[in-house]
């Protein structure tokens, strides 16, 4: 057994242990902490699977923002959480479910073992046209050139999710600001972190967006880091979430998707198809779309964590 395979085995065991802990923990708080650790371990797996772009996204979202969201919900619902044992389903029911889930796992495992060899791949096709897009990172080329429609729809899905979250606000709070994310027991370390980390995080986020054209990175990864920095300053009580009816908030949220859509429609005249880039301008357009989407995605992610408006509009 080589060292690399031993490392992979150890990693797989740790992940399974964390997953079992997340499912089996008696109360919600330890389960969510286990889930965050699970997300961070998955980041290592993505590196082992030669997918650094996915690793960056998983670290920022799976380990970071989802954790903040779930921990926040846990602490708000803690008072209503019933004692762990009282509402468990009966043993035969759990055994039946466990049996069926084991069957499902076995079926998927069989599929994994029976995957065709050599594996079908689109890597040569992706590499062949890479020079036409001008970018060096094939994943960015897939996201913003070959499958740009997916990414456009994804930025629309993010906005739809935010509209969905906002629409849950009681009528009297519509247009107001989400509740403050500031922790009740604030200590010096969090406000120090809230002041020291964001400048570093924002530079890192901008760098990851910029370098994403040619190296691992890109707008979602960078935007998530910038969004996380915003959430951090809100949690440290240094900033409060903005009122959602303000025009600048709406403009920042929509700007990325609107610019992307405008470039896509301009493609009809300039390059003969929706979302086609005119020859020679592909890279500059891709970078421009990435920059426009970065701010919008960062703001959307931050406001998704902040939740629906919970305060009346200040007059």
């Amino acid at each position: 057994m080589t060292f690399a395979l031993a490392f992979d085995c150890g990693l797989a065991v740790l992940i399974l242990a964390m997953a079992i802990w997340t499912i089996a923990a008696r109360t919600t708080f330890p389960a969510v902490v286990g889930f965050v650790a699970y997300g961070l371990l998955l980041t290592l797996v993505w590196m082992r699977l030669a997918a650094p772009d996915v690793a960056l996204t998983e670290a920022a979202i799976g380990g970071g923002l989802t954790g903040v969201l779930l921990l926040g919900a846990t602490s708000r619902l803690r008072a209503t959480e019933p004692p762990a044992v009282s509402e468990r389903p009966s043993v035969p029911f759990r055994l039946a479910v466990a049996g069926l889930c084991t069957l499902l796992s076995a079926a998927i495992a069989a599929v994994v073992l029976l995957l065709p060899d050599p594996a079908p791949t689109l890597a040569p096709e992706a590499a062949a046209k890479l020079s036409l897009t001008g970018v060096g990172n094939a994943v960015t080329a897939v996201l913003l050139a070959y499958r740009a429609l997916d990414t456009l729809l994804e930025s629309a899905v993010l906005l739809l999710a935010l509209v969905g979250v906002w629409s849950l606000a009681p009528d009297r709070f519509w247009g107001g600001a989400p509740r403050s994310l500031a922790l009740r027991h604030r200590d010096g370390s969090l406000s120090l972190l809230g002041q020291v980390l964001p400048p570093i995080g924002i530079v890192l986020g901008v760098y990851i967006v910029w370098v994403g054209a040619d190296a691992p990175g890109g707008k979602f990864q960078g935007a998530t880091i910038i969004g996380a920095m915003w959430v951090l300053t809100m949690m440290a009580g240094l900033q409060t979430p903005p009122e959602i009816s303000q025009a600048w908030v709406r403009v920042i949220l929509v700007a990325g998707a609107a610019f992307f859509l405008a470039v896509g429609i301009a493609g009809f005249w300039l390059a003969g198809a929706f979302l086609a880039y005119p020859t020679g301008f592909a890279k500059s357009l891709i970078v421009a779309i990435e920059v426009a989407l970065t701010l919008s995605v960062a703001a959307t992610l931050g406001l998704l964590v902040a939740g629906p408006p919970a305060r009346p509009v200040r007059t």
Partner: protein
Amino acid sequence: MTGATLFGLCAAVLVGLGLYGAIVHHLILRRIVAFNLLGAGAFLLFGVVARRGTGAGMGGDPVPQALVITGIVVAFSATALAVALLLRLHAVRAAEDADR
């Protein structure tokens, strides 16, 4: 056995575990967590398929990798919506209890 196959088997177990949690748990928040665990397992399967498809000097097939990045972001927005729905449900229930 290669590392990719190993993680593929790991992903198969994760999907089963997540589904079990999503069915068995009574608390909705726990179901949301379990469903995210299931989703991460499904993404990992994609990663294994991508890793097997090496070629043209790349460590993996970039198409499934890009799909997974899109998937992670969409899963997050769906989770945020689910959590917001859950919190609203609790607020409405608490208001109804207070009225009684």
